[in-house]
């Protein structure tokens, strides 16, 4: 591939089977690489794998932790699938998630005495709306002035971090901490858990609900129009499918998912707001969607795998004496291998059309 241009198959209608093959190849190659790396620094690869596995699925509790990690990834990824299929790259999930968490926190702290049955949905709706609004703005800019959504959503991420930093070192900072973080959320804003002995909360069910919804959407009029819009914008205009409107809706949908994930993160797990609440999850979710080949079931698998790696990594230090950063290396390599695999199979042109663009020309 050249530096001057990226040949890139838009992942739009990528098939599930092909995606799975890509993913498995990538994982196999990377596993080999990482094993070699570990052996080089004198660590037993098999032992590490063992530790990883028992760290993420060894006990009921650790399985629960893996699911908790997977939940926001899954929710955001599923919400991003429609826009990714349409070729819209909303990379603003971190910002949208952060604003969602912020809104939920504010609501919970302002009305701590409300009964749980009211407070929990209120926080959810607040988070969802905040995330949606955060994504609505880039959508609007794209629809009216064709502002590149990659850049605008990225900008929103920085704004979110700045806003959180400002609030959490100012009006929202907890009186009991020197760190930039908020007060603890009231107990009645917490999400109920549903597997005894784990922290797995009902957010997982909310995320899984999106799977049949996506499946059904494919068979609906809206889903059809989105498909046309994603496959050929010129054709969409002829069918009086207005690109602007769908752009805004798709972006907003992604934001709503991210906002909900922010709510879950703060209300179910961390119980307080801090600046970095969304950063790793928000970006990882985009990759989960891509690794899942933009297919709902593939995405479930990818989210589970990511969740397991993230959580398993944390238990490595204890289990095998390996720095948990090895997981970052692992994830990075998987993405790289996947990208290479996806690009080369697109370049051989066995299916679909290869679209490409230069970065600076695309808007």
């Amino acid at each position, binding site marked *: 591939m*050249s530096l001057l241009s990226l040949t890139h198959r838009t992942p739009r209608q990528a098939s599930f089977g092909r995606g799975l093959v890509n993913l498995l190849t990538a994982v196999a190659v990377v596993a080999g690489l990482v094993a070699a790396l570990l052996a080089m620094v004198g660590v037993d690869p098999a032992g590490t794998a063992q530790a990883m596995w028992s760290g993420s699925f060894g006990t009921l509790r650790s399985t629960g932790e893996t699911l908790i990690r997977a939940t926001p990834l899954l929710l955001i990824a599923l919400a991003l699938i429609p826009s990714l299929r349409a070729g819209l790259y909303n990379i603003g999930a971190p910002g949208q998630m952060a604003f969602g968490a912020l809104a939920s926190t504010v609501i919970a702290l302002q009305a701590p005495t409300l009964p749980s049955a009211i407070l929990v949905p209120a926080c959810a709706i607040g988070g969802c709306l905040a995330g949606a609004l955060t994504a609505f703005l880039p959508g609007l800019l794209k629809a009216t002035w064709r502002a590149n959504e990659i850049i605008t959503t990225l900008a929103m991420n920085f704004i979110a971090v700045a806003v959180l930093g400002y609030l959490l070192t100012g009006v929202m900072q907890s009186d009991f901490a020197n760190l930039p973080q908020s007060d603890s959320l009231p107990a009645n804003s917490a999400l109920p858990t549903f597997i005894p002995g784990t922290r797995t909360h009902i957010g997982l069910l909310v995320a899984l609900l999106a799977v049949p919804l996506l499946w059904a959407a494919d068979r609906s009029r809206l889903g059809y129009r989105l498909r046309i819009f994603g496959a050929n914008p010129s*054709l969409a205009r002829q069918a009086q499918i207005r690109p602007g409107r769908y752009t805004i809706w798709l972006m907003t949908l992604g934001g709503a998912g991210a906002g909900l994930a922010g709510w879950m993160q703060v209300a179910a797990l961390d119980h307080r707001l801090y600046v970095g609440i969304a950063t790793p999850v928000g970006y990882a979710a985009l990759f989960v969607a891509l690794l899942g080949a933009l297919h709902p079931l593939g995405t479930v698998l990818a989210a589970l795998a990511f969740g397991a790696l993230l959580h398993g990594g944390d238990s490595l230090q204890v289990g095998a004496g390996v720095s948990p950063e090895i997981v970052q290396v692992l994830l990075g390599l998987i993405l790289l291998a996947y990208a290479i695999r996806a690009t080369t199979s697109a370049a051989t042109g066995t299916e679909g059309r290869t679209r490409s663009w230069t970065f600076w020309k695309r808007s």
Partner: protein
Amino acid sequence: MHAANSVAIVDRPAATPAVALKHISKTFGTNAALTDVTVDLRPGEVHALVGENGAGKSTLMKILAGYLPADTGELEVDGRAAPADRVLSGPRVGVGFVEQEGGLIRELTGAENLILAEGTGFLADRAAAGARIRELGNRFGGAVDPHVPVELLAVGQRQRLEILIMLARGADVLILDEPTAALGIEDAAILTEIIERFTADGGGVFYISHKLHEVMSIADRITVLRGGRVVGGHAADQVEVAQLAADMVGQRVAGDENRNGNGSDSAELIEVALGEERARTTASASHEVVGTLTGVCAPAPYVGESALHELDLVVRAGEVVGVAGVVGSGQSTLARVLAGLLRPSTGTAQLPDRVAYVPEHRHDDAVALELSVRDNVVLHSHRRREFCRGPWFRRDRMDQHVEEVLRRSHVRGATLTMPISGLSGGNQQKLVLGRELDECPTLVVAHNPFRGLDVRAIQEVRQAVLGACDQGAGVVMISPDLDELLQLAHRIVVLFAGRILGEVDVADGDLDQLGRLMGGVA
């Protein structure tokens, strides 16, 4: 099929063929696209492949280029065996394939496309790549600016650029798949020039076309395919157009055809092929106006195309208005304005809510290649109340409707769920026409509607267009091919540099006047 259809291979002692395809077979699912096809190409010759839509011409060439694997059969390049049973990671070395729809990356310039194709991008030198394209352009007679993004070039220039890029990569076999389908006479003449110089240089050309007269004049040998088999081989100087047409269509024996013959017999089709057939609606144009442009100015959608200046046009129910003119005189701009896709910068356009529009670039504007046949057919009709239950589709009713549209527009080889890219080029075009005429439009804008259609399909489409006229639609038909227009239109307006220079009534038309107008003499 009939083994009795003996094939007269013309024997001319010659050097080793540049390429030879032997006993090639290929099936898609249950659909036998090619059965035991043997053809070869000698250096310095133009070998034409003709046949109806779906006969297997493009498939055969894709196998040669290494884009598709053959099921069985052998391939020789320069006398040496080459793999035919697998997909190559790029085009086969020495073979340049200019596909039906053009294969350049639109956002890149010609030089960048060359660099990308050669895979030397890391040390890309655009100036050098551009210079090579320029040099070849001068040598073969078709200069194109290699530093302009492809999407800004007109159709003819894009195609020339693609050929030059193939030549720059060292192709000595060129495959041209319906190269003149969208070209005006001038561009076609330049193409002929390039082909002549290329063959004089020792290159060989596989040439696919539905225009038999053109094939006769440009080819040395002609092979006829029908239903995936070779049914005729001729030297171009020893065959009549009528013979070719008869080969293509075949004898109508009951049960012999998988195409349900609809009464139009071969003689009539041959007439169409010969360009003698005149079809015209019986309904005379009424006074009801279906579309009006008044003083319309509109910017051109791409470089090499004219903007519209102060254009007036009235389309009435029941008439076919032909739009003639040198390619690039504003036809694309006019089509987009009429289709409601381009808003005039000044002036007014009074158009119906939905205009049936057959765009000029099929893959860019008329179909979504990776979506299913069903999705492509219901583009407009998916709004119908009867197909919906709440927000969901009623698949059963919708599928029934899709089948009906496919049947009515004579699309062959289609299943509802296959991606439309699995249809042959001509069948895709028929699908688009069928879809657009389906919703009883009052205004039809058809830009090169016969692009890529075989004689029978042209006949069928004519009938469909005239049928729409009888139902009260007004039709605007844009074509670089004057004969096509003369055969269908009631009156022809001539575009020149974005203005309508004049109008000729076809019935008592003055053809000289038409010629003068096209040359820009009012």
